[in-house]
């Protein structure tokens, strides 16, 4: 065993891959799981108990769209009863006032609402469905409750110039937190990458504007900005380190160290139907694979930052360097960094119209998106 496992702190429960939205950057895998293979209410409820017993504090209910599960109220109730703090990461669709009331009544702790833009036209184009107005309605309903609220704006080249309007939605809805989460390039986003990557100019403005927003909103709303990995100097500590903090359970019960892990060839995942969560955490092959430092290559192996970023993201290394054990190619020290620079150069030097004009990217013709479908 390469390293003694600490206990997991967070459980990401991908309750379903079904979703009324078709976002062009969806982080779900290209091969979506069908409804017929989803875990039952009972199986999920056992997972919540096992998670709490293994030391998990928080459960993030996500998908697909977690509200697409007809048993969502019961699942939240059971996760709370197991002792977990429950976040619902949702598009707000399908939801009505009565359903929201029921979610709050059974003890939902935190409601995270995703936004695809601030303008209806952009948001609907990105999500491939008419969804924006419903989100604004949900924001009004939720004001009745004393519940944690996070707004999550997913940011990319097509909507980054709507920042001011996004901040106006924040001002109006007083969330405890707002996240401006740049798209990262896996799954559907990887397929649409050239249409989504922002320009450096857009990004610089965004950083500067959000710094001001942070001051303006201090004490009211926490502002979190997630930079696109490709523009970072050093990689993110992906999932807080492989097999260190987080477990993700897919709709059919496979236990993953990270949502994108199935793209790594040869990794075998165990299923919660066959083994307990604690056993899977402690000694399954997939969780052991990149735990600790033994797997690292240079420059990670002798790098001072290896305990901060754990070598970055294994799945990004797979996608960009073709080797899951390589240094995350977004790292400025990585031998594969020139590949990332070439991708950025293409975005920044071509097609983008008048220099100095922030809005130029949006004046392009509508892209031919590869939309994420809804699984059977």
């Amino acid at each position, binding site marked *: 065993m390469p390293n003694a496992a600490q206990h997991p*702190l967070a459980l990401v429960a991908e309750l379903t891959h079904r979703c009324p939205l078709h976002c062009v950057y969806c982080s779900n895998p290209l091969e979506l799981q069908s409804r017929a293979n989803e875990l039952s209410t009972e199986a999920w409820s056992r997972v919540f108990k096992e998670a*709490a017993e293994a*030391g*998990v*504090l*928080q459960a993030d209910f996500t998908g697909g769209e977690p509200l697409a599960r007809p048993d969502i109220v019961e699942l939240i109730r059971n996760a709370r009863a197991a*002792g977990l*703090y429950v*976040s619902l990461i949702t598009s707000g669709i399908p939801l009505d006032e009565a359903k929201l009331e029921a979610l709050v009544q059974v003890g939902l*702790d*935190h409601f*995270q609402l995703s936004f695809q833009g601030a303008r209806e036209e952009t948001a609907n184009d990105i999500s491939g469905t008419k969804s924006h107005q419903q989100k604004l309605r949900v924001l009004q309903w939720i004001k009745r409750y*004393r*519940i*944690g*609220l*996070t707004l999550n704006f997913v940011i990319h080249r097509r909507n980054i110039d709507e920042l001011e309007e996004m901040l106006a939605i924040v001002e109006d809805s007083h969330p*405890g*937190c707002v996240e401006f989460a740049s798209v990262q390039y896996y799954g559907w986003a990887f397929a649409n990458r050239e249409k989504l990557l922002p320009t450096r100019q857009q990004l610089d403005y965004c950083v500067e504007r959000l710094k001001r927003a942070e001051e303006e909103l*201090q*004490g*009211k*709303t*926490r502002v979190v900005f997630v930079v696109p990995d490709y523009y970072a100097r050093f990689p993110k500590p992906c999932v807080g380190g492989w097999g260190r903090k987080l477990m993700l359970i897919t709709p059919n019960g496979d236990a993953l160290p990270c949502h994108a892990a199935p793209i790594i060839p040869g990794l075998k995942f165990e299923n919660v139907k066959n083994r307990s969560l604690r056993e899977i955490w402690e000694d399954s092959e997939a969780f052991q694979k990149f735990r600790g430092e033994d797997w690292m290559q240079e420059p990670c192996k002798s790098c001072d930052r290896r305990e901060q970023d754990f070598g970055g993201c294994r799945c990004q290394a797979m996608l960009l360097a073709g080797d899951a054990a390589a240094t995350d190619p977004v790292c400025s020290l990585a031998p594969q960094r020139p590949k990332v620079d070439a991708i950025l150069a293409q975005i920044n030097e071509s097609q983008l119209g008048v220099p100095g004009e922030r809005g130029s990217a949006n004046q392009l013709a509508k892209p031919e998106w590869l939309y994420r479908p809804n699984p059977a």
Partner: protein
Amino acid sequence: MNVDLNSRPRLAAGCRMGENNNQRVLLMPERALRLNGPSLEIVSRCDGKHSVSQIIGELQLLYSKAEPHKVEQDILGYLDLLQKERALDFEP
């Protein structure tokens, strides 16, 4: 931020106390804080009833060996941190 001594802090929406393996924690959206000793004493008094001065007074008694001014500064610093994390609301 200046903490008003007469205000009464309480846990913000989405924040609550929890426990796992005998460790008390403050659970917040996306994160959690371990609570031990003084931090637990402070947070468990953030109930919307205790004013900041009352919390200071009670902890000065509880930690009577510590210098009272130091206790006050530590509490104000910790409340300020929790406020920045959006873990507290201050009722007038």
